[in-house]
């Protein structure tokens, strides 16, 4: 395997069948999402129980248990909005190219799933640093040409995860995520962009 690539020839050989790929992607997305929600809930600054997250979402603990179950296949986009809102994080839904998907889907360790909630002071400080030309404030723009409003997404708010995944296949995998803790979306600066400067994959960015 070439250095730095998260896939090998052997691995690709085992997902050449489209039906195999569909099942593999569906489980990877569902499992990573379940691990992400759990990691966000248990993050040091929060340490919320399932009951506490449920209270913040207006749902019983049993619902939280279900959405943290990788085998639960009917998580709706609306519920994901509510989960993200409880953490005061945005939601990111994407249909990337395979290379990008392989790179991001493997980030499953809890330390790589840490995300900071909205903090105006932090964001303003970054904006000021960027304006003043300080490298630490250089936040790459994310899909500037493909921002959808929350209202427009709301029309599809009853979509399920399985819908999302099946729509993503067979030609494209699906990624559903919060934005990384450091706000930099690891590696996004390196993603292929088209002549308009937007990423070469369909993206939906919910602010």
């Amino acid at each position, binding site marked *: *395997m070439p250095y730095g690539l*998260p*896939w*090998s020839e*052997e*691995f690709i*050989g*085992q997902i050449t069948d489209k*039906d*195999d790929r569909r*099942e*593999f992607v569906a*489980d*990877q997305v569902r*499992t*990573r999402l*379940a*691990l992400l929600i*759990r990691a966000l809930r248990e993050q040091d600054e929060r340490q919320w129980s399932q009951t506490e997250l449920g209270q913040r979402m207006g749902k019983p603990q049993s619902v939280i248990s279900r959405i*943290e*179950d*990788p*085998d639960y296949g009917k998580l709706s986009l609306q519920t994901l909005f509510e989960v993200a809102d409880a953490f005061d994080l945005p939601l990111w839904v994407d249909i990337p190219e395979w290379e990008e998907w392989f*790179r991001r889907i*493997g*980030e*499953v*360790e*809890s330390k790589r799933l840490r995300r900071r909630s909205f903090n105006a002071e932090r964001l303003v400080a970054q904006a000021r640093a960027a304006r003043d030309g300080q490298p630490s404030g250089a936040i790459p723009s994310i899909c500037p040409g493909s921002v959808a409003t929350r209202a427009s997404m709301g029309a599809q708010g009853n979509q399920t995860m399985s819908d999302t995944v099946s729509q993503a296949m067979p030609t494209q995998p699906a990624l559903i995520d919060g934005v990384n803790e450091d706000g930099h979306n690891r590696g996004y600066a390196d993603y292929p962009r088209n002549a308009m400067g937007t990423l070469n994959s369909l993206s939906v960015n919910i602010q």
Partner: protein
Amino acid sequence: MAVLWSFRCYLSPDGTDEIRKAHDSEERQTRKKFHSRLKILAALPFEEWHNGVLYRELHGECFGLGEIKFKGDNVQQRPLGFRSSEYEFTILFWAHERGNKWVPLKACQRALERKAEVIANKDRTNALWLALE
């Protein structure tokens, strides 16, 4: 993604990879979910296996074993194994769970017998045939 773990599979005395044989007899969804879950486990430190969602250590008559947990084709799939070295997990027996009972009922006993065989003779395992990266 860093792959931390390697997986090995039990070989019967005639050299048959029993885990691959069991895997191949399952439906597509189960086969690919197994592949997916091992890929995820391979990237996680062991303390993050212990969240009861992907993996669980067993007690009582199954003490010394752990189960990889997932649902495939509406059946609770429970490949049983043990941590055979710091970053190596050996899968011994592909069990199922139905109504809080093992299928087959003596799944743990058979897995523990296999574990004893593997500990006595490491040649009774094969590297996992599935690529995880």
